[in-house]
């Protein structure tokens, strides 16, 4: 029970991941995102070793299809995994194992992979892809958010007893191997995708201030002053 998108911005080469799920703290299980290398996200019955291993293989120079084959040979329970891989050039592959819980599936598009399991149906994946493609001029983090919102609005996750809420969600976008750019999380909430929008929009207001004060502290205003300006008090 999860729906995700991994994608590359064709204008900037930035790589990003968006994910929402019923499970708690999903952002803490998203290690497989590395600038200039690629993305791998394993979900359903996840294998925590897969994503770091895939990043190492991508870094060694293997393409996504070969990386996926190597993950398969390394894991006796590969049939229970759902895996999306994207390389730095935006080439994607996906695997939805026969042991993942229905409805599960994926769509590999140009520069992105949309995938999920325990979903209302294939319309969720289609909606994720449409959400991502809706505004191709927007920053990658906002395109990822629109994709998640598309998946949620198309019915999201549905288990044996009906609709499952999104309790955690995360967006991570990288341009530099040393630190993330947009990196926002909601770990436990009744409407995690809606809350993720709130956090991301607030983060976007602070993003430049936080970056610049680190680059040149000697000219930085205080956060109190910055917040006052944001709130129109000065």
């Amino acid at each position, binding site marked *: *029970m999860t729906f995700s998108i991994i994608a590359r911005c064709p204008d900037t080469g930035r790589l990003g991941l968006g994910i929402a799920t*019923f*499970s*708690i*703290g999903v*952002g*803490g*299980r998203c*290690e497989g995102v590395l600038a200039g290398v690629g993305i791998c996200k394993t979900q359903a*019955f*996840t*294998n*925590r*070793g897969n*994503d*770091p291993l895939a990043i190492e293989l991508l870094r060694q120079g293997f393409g996504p299809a070969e990386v996926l084959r190597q993950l398969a040979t390394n894991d006796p*329970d590969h049939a*229970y995994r759902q895996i999306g891989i994207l390389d730095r050039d935006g080439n994607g592959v996906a695997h939805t194992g026969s*042991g993942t*819980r229905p409805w599960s599936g994926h769509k590999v598009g140009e520069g992105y992979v949309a995938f999920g399991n325990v979903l209302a149906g294939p319309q969720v994946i289609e909606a994720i892809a449409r959400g991502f493609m809706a505004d191709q001029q927007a920053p990658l983090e906002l395109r990822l958010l629109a994709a998640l919102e598309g998946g949620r609005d198309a019915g999201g996750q549905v*288990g*044996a*007893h009906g609709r*499952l809420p999104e309790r955690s969600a995360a967006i991570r976008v990288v341009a530099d*191997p*040393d*630190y*993330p750019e947009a*990196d*926002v*999380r*909601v*770990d*436990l909430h009744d409407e995690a995708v809606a809350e993720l929008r*709130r*956090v991301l929009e*607030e*983060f976007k207001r*602070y993003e430049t201030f*936080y*970056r610049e*004060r*680190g680059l*040149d*502290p*000697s000219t*930085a205003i*205080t*956060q109190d002053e910055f917040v006052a300006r944001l709130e129109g008090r000065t």
Partner: protein
Amino acid sequence: MTYTILGRCARTGRLGIGIATFSITVGRYCYGVKAMTGVTVSQAFAHERNNQLALRLLAQGFSAGAVLQRLMGNDRHASYRQIGVIDRDGTAVAYSGPGTRGWSGHVVGENHVAFGNGLVGPEVAEAIAAGFLAEPAADLEHRLLCAIEAGRDAGGQGTRDRHKPERSAALRVYSHHPYADIDLRVDLHATAVEELRRVWTEYKKYETYYRDRERNPKGAIGQEAFMATLRAAEA
């Protein structure tokens, strides 16, 4: 304005970070921890490259003190940084630059660094260290969370007549895997430390279930069925 505990478990060698601050999404500054390598955070006016540089130096074999020297030598704005480093042996060092704001300082001991800036006073850093040391036999994540709560209860950020709220907080612990054992965040909340405790308490109920279903998918029950057993146990 931030307060932080870096800790190493002497019993297991696990490494972790607990942090709380007025800034939002502080968890994005907490990737400076790596299994069997070390743990570091640069804060105040954070130099975003410091953490990964420090981890690479630690992986090359430099001690915590040597890493701190190199970070400072590499940074023309070092006086604005506050940096803590613990290496895999538990040697801990810290630096609180004169350009950091408010009350700024650190308490360093074997296996821990308690440090912060924009704080009510030195009692906050001392309370964080005391909170960390209170239960040395407990799990590292528990000790880190108790340390942060102790910092909050000692006054946290701001001045004695004006408390500045914790709007984000995070907790990360690594053992011997290339991924975190515990990685929880609160990115934007009116009382982020309380919220982190709530998330942690809930997460702990699921932790074993999440791990076991990954390792043995064939025998795993669905999460809805697992939650029914949780509810039955709590009833």
